[in-house]
């Protein structure tokens, strides 16, 4: 149990920190007490962007060697974003381990390191929503739309945001 116990202790600590010291717009916690390796998160759409007002749900999945390996983040709601794969998986440098750089443009300092935390990941995702990086399109169609037809992109995004809060 040693490896798992290490991971669990760390996750438990992070969870406590999150509920005791809330960051605005970020909510995260394990889905059930049985399985601490899968968390559910809610990320508020950043203000002054088409995502404003939305509450985007996502699941965070941890590996057994967390924090050595990064977790994966997958949106469970509809979302159109250049850096989110069509299946909802988020493509962001903080979730990539150093050394694993398919596109060779990410700085090592922006990548995953054991000192990162759930809170920092979710904050990065929030800023990713505000400022998409259309050069590393995970969703090529969204990137294209973002670059060439911004109006349509924003309209769809606003609809997504509205849908997340049941409107």
């Amino acid at each position, binding site marked *: 149990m*040693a490896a798992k116990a290490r991971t669990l202790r760390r996750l438990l*600590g992070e969870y406590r*920190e999150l509920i005791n010291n809330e960051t605005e717009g970020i909510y995260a916690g394990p889905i059930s007490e049985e399985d601490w390796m899968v968390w559910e998160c809610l990320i508020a759409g950043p203000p002054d962007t088409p995502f404003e007002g939305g509450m985007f749900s996502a699941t965070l999945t941890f590996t057994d060697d967390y*924090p050595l390996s990064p977790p994966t983040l997958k949106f469970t709601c*509809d979302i*159109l974003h250049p850096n989110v794969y069509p299946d909802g998986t988020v493509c962001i440098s903080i979730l990539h381990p150093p050394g694993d750089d398919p596109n060779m443009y990410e700085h*090592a300092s922006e990548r995953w390191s*054991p000192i990162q935390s759930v809170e920092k990941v979710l904050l990065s995702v929030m800023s990713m929503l505000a400022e998409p990086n259309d050069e590393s399109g995970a969703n090529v*169609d969204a990137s294209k739309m973002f670059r060439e037809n911004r109006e349509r992109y924003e309209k769809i995004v606003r609809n997504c945001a509205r849908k997340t809060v049941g409107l």
Partner: protein
Amino acid sequence: MDVNFPDPTDWLSTSVPGIQALETALSCQVCKEFFTAPVATSCGHTFCSLCIRRCLSATQKCPTCMTTDDESRLRKNTLVQDILSSFTAIRKQMLDGLVIKEEPEPPITKEPEAEKKRVEKRSSYDFDEEIEEEETTNNKRRGKRRKQEEAPVSSGGSSDRPRRSTRTSSQRTNSKISSQTAIVIDDSDEDFNPNEINSDNEFESGSRPKRGRPSRVPETPPTTNLVPCPICGRLKEPEQIQSHANRCIEGKRSPSPSQNAANAASSSLSPLKRPPISFSNIPKPAATQFRAPYTEEEKQKLKLAKGNFTLTKEADIRKRLRENGIRVDVKGKESKNAIWARLQEWTNLWNANLDSEMPKTKQALVKELETSERHQQSQKPSVVQDKEFAREEWGKDHRTEYENMIADAKMRVLKKKNEAESATNGDKTDTASEPPRMTAEVNGIGSPEIIET
């Protein structure tokens, strides 16, 4: 799982929330717990000995600044160890002291005993208020909290909030002195709060720091300041601990004089070394599990080198493992990768144990290695970050699996095609023949037509 381990956020509900930053600074950023045998990297960042060794085995980079570093350049950070020892020794006391004043005052007129208590508390107020004046950086946060206090308790926020601020409680004290009615209000207040905790915070109450909350730190039980002996684990008065530890060690082996002092001073935390402890079952570390700290000469002599994967022969790895009494399968059964990983983990555990102020015996370490391996085996191996990951060997080992997967995928595509064909033949809808990319394009949003209405 034990929720009663110290957490920096415990301080948020005290009158000096700034201690949170202090405690965070005394925690390893990898495991987010108090340092265990802190060591500094050559770039100046401090981590637990074991944490940083594991990180460096994986990437050879400092987790904080990503500069390349090597295990051999790690140096013990004694200053941090000393600060941490003194901090953990008084942590419980401080926490109790800083939260206790939130309690409404017992009325002075009731009993002489209560009056005595009140005087004691007064003195702690004075102390707190002095600190508060100095604490300018955290005023903002506290101001925010006070605002929340005044708002009706609908946010399900902190159960401690309604009685937190120093100033309010002192004002309460003053009003009590001046009039009897205030006492009544205070009493009802006191009765009301516990209910609030139960109803509003059912999920937080388990993990919320509470006054008098049992701490995992075994040397600071709530009533007295007993310290567990690092050797036998028996609880002793702090004044007696050194002589007691001396006697304990003499019973087992003759140590160098400096070790006893180190022992006594650093009976402090070693979170990775002990099982999580709830206050109800105070640890009794088996006497055989620990040994006296290593001296510098011993450390130099016993330190294990990391070695190089390609340069080390498989037979050598087996030999080194067997020498340490670690289980190795007969030749050929385990791959070089597997036994190399075992040797690396052993080296990490061993070297980190050398840095520890409360080292474990070799047998205990071997056992730890085995339990962690047994668990790893039941899980999917993670190779993401392994710098030594041998791509080709892996490919060779798993060739059949890959081939099966490819065949499987081909079969599925074929099947889909057949189905699609039969579907288009059956009726003229083009749903099945629609390329899968189309569904990917709309990204699960639903069809674009719907969105644009």
